[in-house]
Each structure stands twice: as C-alpha cells, then as structure tokens.
C-alpha cells in the first residue's frame, strides 16, 4: 500500500498551497506568503472575515484579510497616487519596512519631545504595541499592491501618532474614519461604520459631534499619507508634519 509519489490531479486548480518543490511549476506564488485564490474564494473570504471580525474584534487577522480581499479597486488607486508623487515613488522603489529590527530605538528615544520619532516611540510604549505584529499580506494577487497594503498597515501606528489617538476602540474608530477618507479601502469604510457599534453612548456622542467630523475634514484636506517617507523624517516635529500634510490639530 505505498502511496503514489506524485500528484495526478489537474494543475491550475485554484487555492493551492505554496510552491516548495521544483516540480510544482505553474504555481503562481508572487511573493512569500502569497496564497492565490479564485474569485469565489475571495468572495467567501470577504464575507467570512467580515462576520468574524465583527463577532470577535480581537481577530485582527480577519480585519487584514477583509482589507486584502476587498481592496481590488482602492489599492491600485493608492499605488497610482504613490507613483505620481516623488516621495511616494521613492517609497515604491525602495520598499522600506517599519520593523523593530530596523528602527534605531536608542536614536529615536534621544530625539527631542514633539519630534515624530520620539512621539512614535512614546505611542508604541504607552499602548504596548509593536510594528512587528502587522500581518503580512496573503490574498493580494499583485506583488506591488501587496507592498502597498503592507505599507498602509505599517504606517497605521504613525497615523495614531499624527492624529494623537490612542489604541482603544474610540481611537481606532477615529483613525479608521481618517483612513477611510484617505485611502478609500472598503475595509476602512466598514470598520469606520461598524466599529462604533461597540461603544457606549457617551463615547458615541463625542465621536459623532467632535472626532469624526474632524477626522473627515482632515482626511479630505490632507495629502496622501502614504506619500510620506516617515523613516527619513524622524526629527521633524509632529506639529510641522501635520501642517505639511494638512491635518487639522486634534480637538
């Protein structure tokens, strides 16, 4: 009863595992971690991840999957915005990654208070988060777009810093509103719309009267936040960067 050693199923079947052996050519893994999916699978994933993300808000991986499977229109848009901007274009060429291993934490700590680097570090420490916990993309079928969404995820914490919002539910919803206006990603729109469901009425009031209008106005006024090479601007004061981008001061 020895098993047949090689596969005999037709190739090109959607949704297979990653390519590891040389025999498995015809397998379209575009970047490490890529899982090619059929349109049906993407639709199922989008629906499933939306439900799961609402049901269990701690499933950040589901929010990520939702973003990837629904971003097919917004992501190329974002990529084009980046291409047409000199700084954004450079980012696309150089593909910087924000990771604890690449951040010079000591240097950032030594920067004066109010500078982007110092405030970013303060934000990471206060909220006990790390840039390394961002999920790598899996279901985006274009290698450049995969980088774009990866960049968006890594820049999310910097959004918190720029907007001065903490990582509690209220803060996250505000950032989502801002990002929804800026990027047009359906996942941000859904997050912005459904996130408040879990908030108390008092917080909802603050959200509706002050924070969301401010976030929307800033989002509309600001230039594309993905076009900023943050790693080269650690010394720049947050206030000055806000002004440059067009983000109004937080209420």
């Amino acid at each position: 009863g020895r098993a047949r050693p090689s596969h005999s199923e037709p190739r090109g079947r959607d949704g297979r595992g990653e390519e590891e052996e040389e025999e498995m050519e015809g397998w379209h893994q575009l970047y490490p971690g890529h899982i090619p999916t059929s349109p049906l699978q993407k639709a199922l994933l989008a629906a499933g991840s939306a439900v799961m993300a609402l049901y269990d808000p701690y499933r950040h991986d589901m929010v990520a999957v939702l973003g990837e499977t629904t971003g097919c229109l917004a992501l190329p848009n974002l990529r084009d915005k980046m291409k047409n901007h000199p700084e954004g274009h450079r980012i696309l060429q150089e593909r910087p990654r924000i990771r604890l291993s690449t951040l010079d934490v000591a240097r950032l700590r030594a920067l004066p208070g109010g500078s982007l680097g110092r405030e970013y570090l303060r934000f990471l420490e206060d909220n006990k988060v790390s840039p390394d916990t961002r999920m790598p993309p899996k279901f985006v079928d274009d290698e450049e777009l995969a980088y774009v969404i990866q960049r968006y995820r890594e820049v999310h914490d910097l959004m918190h810093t720029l907007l001065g919002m903490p990582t509690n539910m209220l803060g996250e919803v505000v950032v989502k509103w801002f990002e929804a206006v800026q990027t047009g990603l359906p996942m941000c729109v859904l997050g912005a719309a459904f996130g408040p469901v879990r908030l108390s009425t008092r917080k909802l009031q603050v959200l509706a009267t002050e924070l969301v209008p401010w976030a929307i106005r800033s989002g509309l006024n600001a230039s594309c936040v993905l076009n900023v090479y943050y790693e080269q601007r650690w010394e720049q004061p947050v206030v000055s960067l806000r002004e440059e981008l067009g983000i109004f001061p937080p209420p």
Partner: protein
Amino acid sequence: MAAARLCRCRCRALLSRPAGAVRARRGLAAGPEMHFGFQTVTEEERREKIYQVFENVAKKYDVMNDSMTLGIHRVWKDILVHKMNPCPGTLLLDVAGGTGDIAFRFINYVRSVRQRQLQRKLKHHQNLSWQQIFESYQKDEFNSLGDSQVVVCDINREMLKVGKQKAEHLGYSEGLSWVLGNAEELPFDDDKFDVYTIAFGIRNVTRIDLALQEAYRVLKPGGRFLCLEFSHVSNPLLSRLYDLYSFQVIPVLGEVIAGDWRSYQYLVESIRQFPPQVVNNYGTYFSGGAEGNDRRCRLFQSGL
C-alpha cells in the same frame, strides 16, 4: 459523499515489507519521494509537515470537523463504534485518536452495554435478599465499564493535549489512557489488544505498510482492525460538487475559523491523494506468505 470503509483482518502469516523506492533528487538528500497533499516531498519532510499541520489545527480540530462535514463525521464515527460492537472487557487501541472522538464513543457504548447486562442480571436474581442485592450492586457499580479499556495513541502532543482537556471537560476518566506514540512503531507489547481502530488517520501516516505491520503485531489473535477513511466519490456530479466544496470552501473556513489556510489545504489535498487501492491491499498485508494459511479477512464497505 465519502464512503466509510471498515476492514476486519487478522491472520497468522508472515508479513513481507515492500521495498521502499529510493530516488536521489538532484543534489538533495536521497529518500523516498512521497506526496504531501499535491506537493512532492521526502519521507522525513512529510512527517514533519504533517506534525506541524496537526499541531496548528489541534485547538480548532473539532470545530473544523463539524464545519467541513456539516456534522456528518459524528454519524460516521457512531457507525464505526456500532460496527465494532464492543462488549465489556474489550481492550481497544485507538491510533491517531488525538482528540478522543472514538474513545469517548467506545466508553459510552460499553457503559450502556454494561448497564443492560447488570439490569438483566438483577432481573434474574429475584430470590436474593436485600442485603445480597445491595452487595452485588455495589460490586458492579465500581465496574461500570466492565474492565473495558481504551488507549488513545497519537503522534502529536497537541492533539493529545486537546483530547485530555476534552475528557476532563466531559467527565471521562475511567478506562481511558493517553499515549504519545507513532503508528509506525507502537510502544506496546505483542498480542495485547482486542480491537485496533484508526479513524481518518491512516492517510496521514507516512509508511502505511509499517503501521499495518504494527497493527498486526499488537492485536491479539482473533482481534479486529477497523479503519475509517475517506474514499473517492464515483458519481461525477457529486464529485464535482464535492471538489468545489473541498477546494473552494474548506480552506476559506480554515482561514476564517482557525486562521490557518494552509493546513486545511493540505487536509483536502491529502484526501484526494489517498489511493483507494490502499484499502483493498490491506488484505495482502494480513495474509499470504509461506506460513500463512489462516486467512480471515473481510472488507466492509458502507457508502454514504
């Protein structure tokens, strides 16, 4: 959609081990090539990968089984235990039994059989004094399983952990033991068990021939070997639907429920790769050879 195949074999015979094909791949370590889902890997790699798959899925294994088979796997397992029809005093070895589904069903079954036995016994003892009835009842109460025992053996520590937690949660303690072991090399003496079961496990074994040899070894003469496994769907329309469901829906369920696409991709591929003739070849493992002349092997096949 999947046929459950049960095979009862036990023969006194010489077993011959088929020679493993060894093909050196360009520059890589020589080793027999095997399938891992739809990929081709060496034997060692396959064992490792499968170990990792089950390590990853262990916590959500039961939830995923229910979602993937829409709960039907429970029916199949019930049928297996019914076909086994164990009587109190049976010693069962459940291999690849990780989360304990077969073991718990076995215990329930034996318990109910035992209860009926006791009831019948009491009915026949109409002339006993109250004292005598009380004493006999006490004696039997502590033997609710009638000395039946089940040993759950699995190669994967995580699966056993989940199984033990389940047992605690559901209140199973008596007659149950958990052993970490490899189906290809069981840590048990010869001629020990009355029944050997392996439910949805044998397609994950890398050397099925060795597993069958071991099964033969640890079973008592007259013992039974029961294997529950997926087989291929012959109806073309059903087959297309089944393929669609397996390849399109199940990995998505794996990602959404367990956060693990790849393990479930492997699981559906491994079902396709498990050749049906393996089951038909069980007979040859348990028979033939120069000394063999006592061949009792019957293949039960029930389609669902």
